[in-house]
């Protein structure tokens, strides 16, 4: 097994170019909390590794006039503890704080989480709700963008080309943006999500984005439930309509699946949490 340890983006591009010139099985190592487990479990699968942990251009959080940029190798701990993210993109900070254990969050990165393409990836639903864009770069330095919902092409499989890597996550800044993330697993902490919901909304009418995780390859948008929230009317009837809309969306998303009877009910619990949190936050102004 060959391991490359580029220390900057130029060196990374060189390595990627060499893999294009002489194709070989190659994996990007961005934390390794999933990849190393996978490698150890499958001794037959021994790709060359390109370790991104030393690439300095991937480890930054930067404010711009209209957006926040998070480098692909920023860890969940860094996201969880970042005061601006906590304040303005609280769904993402919250999701980061619920990934695995502290040890996992110290190593695991947002780029790694995205490229790993797990249906249960906790960063995906908030990024979808927050209208994030993924900045992808190839060996020649050509940049393109992807929506978070496009990164997974199948469970465990991402849509990146062999010479591409995720450079950063771009989060647009919006006025009065509120966001929330809730999940449920098999225990309170260090749990793989069985189901998660991420909500972002601003005071602007029509701006409500609600996504569910762990229902399919990519997060699923809950449009009917968004419409109920967009009434911005916190009555008991709307509350029930909201929960019913969530159950309906789950039923449409995973018909016939063994987990359906549980998830169509459990989503109401997560929905209730979101409803209460959103209602309180909005009434606080």
């Amino acid at each position: 097994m060959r391991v490359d340890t580029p220390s900057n983006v130029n060196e990374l591009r060189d390595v990627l170019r060499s893999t294009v010139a002489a194709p070989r099985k190659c994996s990007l190592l961005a934390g390794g909390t999933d990849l190393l487990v996978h490698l150890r479990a499958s001794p037959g699968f021994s790709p060359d590794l390109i370790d991104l942990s030393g690439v300095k251009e991937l480890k930054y959080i930067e404010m711009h006039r209209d957006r926040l940029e998070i480098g692909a190798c920023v860890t969940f701990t860094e996201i969880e503890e970042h005061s601006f993210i906590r304040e303005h993109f609280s769904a993402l900070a919250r999701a980061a704080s619920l990934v695995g254990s502290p040890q996992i969050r110290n190593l695991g990165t947002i780029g790694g989480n995205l490229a790993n393409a797990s249906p249960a990836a906790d960063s995906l639903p908030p990024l979808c709700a927050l209208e994030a864009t993924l900045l992808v770069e190839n060996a020649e330095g050509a940049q393109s963008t992807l929506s978070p919902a496009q990164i997974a092409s199948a469970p465990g499989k991402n849509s990146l080309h062999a010479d591409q890597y995720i450079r950063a996550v771009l989060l647009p800044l919006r006025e009065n943006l509120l966001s929330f993330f809730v999940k449920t697993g098999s225990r309170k902490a260090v749990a793989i999500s069985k189901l998660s919901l991420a909500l972002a909304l601003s005071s602007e009418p029509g701006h409500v984005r609600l996504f569910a995780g762990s229902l399919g390859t990519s997060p699923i948008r809950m449009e009917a439930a968004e419409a109920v929230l967009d009434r911005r009317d916190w009555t008991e009837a709307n509350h029930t309509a909201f929960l019913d809309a969530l159950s309906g969306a789950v039923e449409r998303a995973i018909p016939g699946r063994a987990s359906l009877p549980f998830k169509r009910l459990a989503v109401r619990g997560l929905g209730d949490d979101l409803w209460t949190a959103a209602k309180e936050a909005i009434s606080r102004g």
Partner: protein
Amino acid sequence: MAELKYVGRDVQRNDIVEKASGRMKYMGDRMQGGAAHARLLLSPIARGRVVSFDASEAERMPGVLRVFSPKDDPGKRFNSALFLPDQTDVQDHPVFTDKPLFVGDILGAVLAKDEETARAAAAAVKIGFEEEAPLLDMEQAALPQTPSFREGMSPVIEGKIAYGEEVVPEDAIILESTVRTQKIHHGAMENHICEARMEYGGVLLVETPCQMAFTVRYVLADLFDIPFNKVRVVKTPVGGAFGGKQEVGIEPHCALMALKTGLPVRLALDRTQTILATRTRAASVGRIMIAADREGNLLRREMDVIVDAGAYATGTQRVMMAMGKKTSRLYRIPSQSFHGRTVFTNTTPAGACRGYGSPQIHAITEIAMDLLSRKLPMDPAELRLKNLVHPWDSDPAGGPALGNARIRDCLVRGMETFRWNERRVLPSGEGRFRRGVGLACCTHGNGYFGSPYPDFMSMAMRFCEDGTVLVNAGLHELGNGTLTTIGQIVAEVLDLPPERVEVSESDTSTTPFDVGCVASRVTYVCGACALELAEKLKSRFLEQCARVLAVDAHRLSLKNGEMIDSEGGVSRSYGEMVCRIAKELREEAGEYLHYKPDRNPASYGVHFAETVTDTFTGMVEVTDYLAVHDVGRAINPRLLRGQIYGGVQMGVGMALSEELVYDSKGRPKSASLSRYTMVNAPSMPNVGVLLVEEGEPGGPFGGKSIGEICTVPVAPAIANAVNASLGTSMTELPFSPERILAALSARRETNAR
């Protein structure tokens, strides 16, 4: 009794510095080198036949020493629980099989110069199978018409325990229920590991973190036809066992490879292999009928319990009988029958697991007790108080007398501390979250006395030339503080600081026989042996001192490391006297004791749980907890509480989240710790501990067992709290979010009708 100096005190455990600083050398911490590394080849199918075995690619890999296949199986079958030839447990277990009976069954192994090579080579061995449909459902396996995979062996092993007349009065209140308990992985931090090598003189040396070194010796000597005195089994530091290292596990495989190659062999499993290929807590289905009169006096109880052995017999039939034996030792019931059936499925073999059937049978009986209390209706605590045994009761099924059985004190004092009466009648709430309280009682044993398995041990103890004490015993420290508590007992009698007492662990060639750290016997049996031997050594030492000093022994006493002659006004250190005894008397200041207990009283406990259930997501949170135990006397209260905290944590897992489940092809769906949900710190409640210390005759300073019983009542206490808060009658463990929501949906549908 005079004030005790060391017993009853929070003496610091002997290995705390090594363990807390990470310097303790478990077998897995040994540097590579000096041994060949083995990697097991496990069956990916649940039932079938090996039709091809191609190791050519693996054998070509540099560093590969040998590949073992089913052809290397010695042909003889063993039973991993058996330790004397009179034991009739079915011997059905091969070392390397060509007819796998569960996913994880051991087909062979790869031996290589290092672990990485062994892993890579194991992945390169190509094995072809002819698959057969697996039998996975234990209730189906119990049906006579179900075809068995047991090939000539009985597909069902039955056991019955009954007493009293089979009469139920016509006007009795009858509760009938069926309770299901799940298959559980032990989850010890240390995965299974073992080393075997040939020593000079043709001695097979096996080092293993085990609970019963002499059982390992028995199985290996018997299986490989080696004289018993040529097999030396040495117990190494254990990183958690919980019964999972009680039965013989991977030692036969490791030893076979060492015997066949002459190489030192190290065999280490990873977590997935430990989950797949070792042992589990047996799943059970218990049908139960309880008859009571209107005042809540129990009249008769009938239990029909199916226990799932998995693919091999192992010790499961013993677990089943142990379940039955608990049922006549908690309540006064005029008549009762227990009918057990051990059945076989193509799943991971069961075996010992903390409580040895006790958590399963108490889940069945204690959940049913609450359902009965609802039917009467009556406060579940009051129902129990009416029926619990009293101190010195006998066992109506013929087991040993119960001894100073203080379960009633546990319940009464626990109710007060937990404020049971007040909290039980609080409304559970109307909204999304429902609060409730529940309790469960339990009993467990103190050794093998009165069972088919002989309980005895021997120990040697001597003073060294510096006055320190060496205890030579075949003990097994599993992390539960055995060596510390034995040291405290000895230190108390010989009056010297516990850190000056060194207690050994099992080495079948150098320590006297002890059956092992099993059956909750160590404090009550081994502790009593240590106490009696220390007293014997003390008399001998004083008598020797008297001869050296030419005075009457009655003038002499031991105090804080010194021999005191009160009349002569002389005090001498133990060490000085040991040296004088050696020189002047040509004697060792040492003694030996053969010890056999002549009773086996019961330990008791009551646990109280408060739960809050999220009726939307089905998540249950245990919000408050109290464990009350009749321990006779706490030798080391801090270590004892530690046992209880851990026991509660295991029990919460059994109640709420732990379960080995299989898909339709028999493949475990949760063969890693990310999928197999054990309870971690954020999900743990504060655990209050209340000890009832009324002294148990026969135990050292009145002490009796705690290590297993503290996990026994947890699941039913939590289940009863959840059922009380939701108005449900759930009886299938664990109470996962999925099951909670399904039960709530079913209840809503019933109510709507």
